[in-house]
């Protein structure tokens, strides 16, 4: 982004229109204002492009959070919108040295967990709609059944447990999970073991 802005500055310096304005003492301030406006606009456009590239590459990350925390498709879209908006607003503060997934997961989980929700619909009802939706897709039936059972089981966990199991399923390392959640690595291990046992019991019972 910085490189592109410097390049643009050079072009503006060479541009006849701006140099004419700049040499004329009365219009120097206006010329600077126009230049700043153009630079800001270009910076915003460049940031938008960079942000879209990141989002397109990691769309599944946001979708996973939405899918884990919301059952209804409309609510998922609402949450998706909120997460994308928060990411976009925080994007100017994103440091290139930081890992995008850690940064994005932090924001996505913070937004998903602290979002206000109406009382949830019954699990059975959701499971039924989900199965109906799956019936229309030409997937392997045993796979879908296992995944449906997993979704129903995850849905019975509390928000903190959902966050942890989501990161575990996405193959995030314990160290990174600890960084995202803000607890120690040992604590992550202990909690994940408990959640896994709980999930296994639920899955076997179903």
């Amino acid at each position, binding site marked *: 982004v910085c490189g592109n802005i410097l390049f643009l500055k050079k072009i503006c310096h060479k541009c006849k229109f701006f140099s004419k304005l700049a040499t004329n003492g009365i219009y120097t301030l206006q010329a600077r204002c126009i230049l700043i406006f153009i630079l800001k606009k270009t910076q915003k456009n460049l940031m938008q492009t960079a*942000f879209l590239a990141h989002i397109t590459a990691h769309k599944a990350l*946001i979708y996973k959070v939405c899918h884990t925390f919301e059952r209804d498709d409309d609510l998922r879209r609402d949450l998706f919108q909120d997460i994308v908006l928060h990411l976009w607003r925080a994007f100017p*503060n994103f440091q290139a040295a930081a890992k995008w997934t850690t940064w994005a997961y932090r924001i996505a989980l*913070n937004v998903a*967990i*602290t979002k206000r929700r109406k009382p949830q619909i019954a699990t059975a009802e959701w499971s039924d709609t989900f199965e109906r939706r799956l019936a229309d897709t030409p997937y392997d039936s045993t796979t879908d059944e296992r995944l449906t059972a*997993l979704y129903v089981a995850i849905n019975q966990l509390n928000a*903190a447990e959902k966050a942890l199991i989501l990161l575990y399923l996405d193959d995030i390392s314990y160290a990174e999970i600890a960084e995202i959640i*803000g607890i120690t690595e040992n604590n992550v291990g202990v909690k994940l073991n408990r959640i*896994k046992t709980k999930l296994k019991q639920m899955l076997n019972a179903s």
Partner: protein
Amino acid sequence: MLPNLIFILKNMNPSDHNPLDLDGLKSLWNVEMQTEAESFSDNQQILTIMQQKTTSTVARFQRNLLLECLTAVPLFIGAYFLFEALNKQLPPLVWLGIVILTFSYHIYLYVTLKKQAEASVPLAVFLEMQLAEIRKFMKMYEIIAILFSIIVFFATLFQAYAILILRLKLGVLMLVPQFCIAALASAGAFFFTHWLANKLYGQHYATLQECYAALK
């Protein structure tokens, strides 16, 4: 030969040994999520989202604060003209003090909330910040509830005193039922404000508290 080969290939799939094994389901889950995410939204939709406003709690608090500031302006102007009409002048410094106090409090809350909106901190820290902020709002409502109930109590009692004692010249004992009514109205005002605060923030606070406790 062919049925045997199919049987061997089937047994080679590790997730088929234990169909509900979590590690086996991991890859299936990732594939499913990737496929669904692709069809969930395109770049054009994301660009539209970037222009919209958020519905998060912090953003809602911020919008409410801005609305309060906007409604405070006509209220101050109205109050000023009301005092003028009633020929009850307040020193300009008092007016200035009230205006500065109101707006500086709102600006302080807005800045604090702006810091809250930065959600790139770890989940546990973010929850802690959110809980502290909601506690502040709930405390503010509690103070309002107490003040509101005191105002309701004295206003009801004063009205009864003005009508029964000053205008109708009745005995002081006539104030006893009025006292009971004032106490009831004041309790009602207190519980109503308390209920309102609980309805606005209580359930959300409990949910966040539960999540925070589960993490720690």
